[in-house]
């Protein structure tokens, strides 16, 4: 997205309800700063995220997509994030194979107590995506205005 001739990335963050979403909350209550470019979508578990969600986010104009969940071993549903981890590894591998820039997708484990980590991760991710620029290789022109 261009704002005043300056590129502002649109970032979608899928956060699991039990850890990362609470982590984002904590970042807020602690008044830790992270850019408003990050749009959070709350999901029950990181495992709920279908590869399709990530592709859709790109289609609808996201420049970067990050998935946050409980640390491995701490999943509210015991094993959800283990499955998510494998799935995302394979998806990232395929995206890279198709020539999509590395780094446009990311997975980070953030617990409910890690407000600072949440903010730091988001700052870092926004920086990466800003450097990568607009998502051109996975865009759907019809969805861009």
């Amino acid at each position, binding site marked *: 997205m261009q704002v005043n001739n300056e590129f502002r990335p649109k970032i979608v963050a899928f956060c699991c309800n039990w850890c990362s979403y609470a982590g984002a909350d904590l970042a807020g209550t602690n008044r830790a700063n992270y850019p408003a470019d990050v749009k959070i979508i709350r999901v029950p578990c990181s495992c709920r995220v279908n590869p*399709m969600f990530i592709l859709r986010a790109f289609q609808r104009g996201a420049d970067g997509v990050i998935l946050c969940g409980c640390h491995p071993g701490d999943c509210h549903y015991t094993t959800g994030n*283990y*499955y998510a981890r494998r799935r995302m590894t394979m*998806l990232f591998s395929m995206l890279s*194979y198709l020539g999509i820039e*590395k780094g446009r997708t990311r997975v980070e484990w953030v617990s409910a107590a890690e407000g600072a980590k949440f903010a730091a991760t988001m700052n870092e991710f926004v920086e990466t995506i800003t450097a990568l620029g607009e998502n051109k290789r*996975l865009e759907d022109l019809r969805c861009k205005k």
Partner: protein
Amino acid sequence: MQEVMKKRASELLADGTVVRVLGWKNGEFAYDPTPAVFQTVESLEAFVYNDFCASNLSKYLIKFLRQEGKTLVFLKPCDSYSFNQLLTEHRVIRENVYIIGVPCDGKVAEDKLREKGAEGILGIETEGDQIKVKTLYGDLDLNKKECLGERCLSCKSHQVVVFDEMLGENGEENPDCGRFDMVEKLEAMTPEQRFEFWRGELSKCIRCNACRNICPACSCEKCVFDNPASGISQKAAADSFEENMFHIIRAFHVAGRCTDCGECSRVCPQHILLHLLNRKFIKEMNECYGEYQAGAEAGSRAPLVNFTMDDCEPSIIYTKEAGK
């Protein structure tokens, strides 16, 4: 081989072991035999088996899942892997199927014959590694190896992994088939080159869904691509995003379940190198989670429905090798 198969099929039909036979009969063209069901000894007249019989019969067994009686099926090595995979997913019942394994040293692709000047193909005969192609304009003697389909050139295994009886001698696995060579070549390219390569491939797709229909791993009763309300059922891709999406999702849905039978690439009317997507997943899963061959063993647990506590993190993809 055809006569031996016919004879066994008639015997098994006649003595009531099976009530139907799943095999091939001539299609519209001699080079395009289609899967067919035979229910009487007389109908077996039309049974054919030759080096054009490439289609994988295992998927057709799903149709008989809820029907009475045993089905006789002829399975080539790659088809037998698919059969095991369908068993694993409870899409066929082992007891309801009588499997005759047929050894295979590759099937002939019609387009390769055309390249060699065969027009108006009427039939094929095989003598060892020589084939005689009968055409409207006379016979052509060719070397079989030079006319094999792409997938047969990098065949992972000549072994029928599940059967009740075997016609002829069973083959062996072929680990040095080099099936990942092309994947490796792509991995060594820059992202820009890869992007260009895949645009060139995927933009040819006309979304005919043939690759999905033929795939023995694509065995869901209801598929999102059958649902007109999904907006993605069957329509030509409008832009590069849709091309990517269909192919990523198709390959993803069969990831860990794809036996690398090669049917998808074989039937694609646009000759898109679909196996390069499937093989990428197979290769990556082998590297990340240990060697796994879908369908080698019935009941095995595929990598994507499994995990260990110390699996690699997704970021490994970005750090693995430079240039990747």
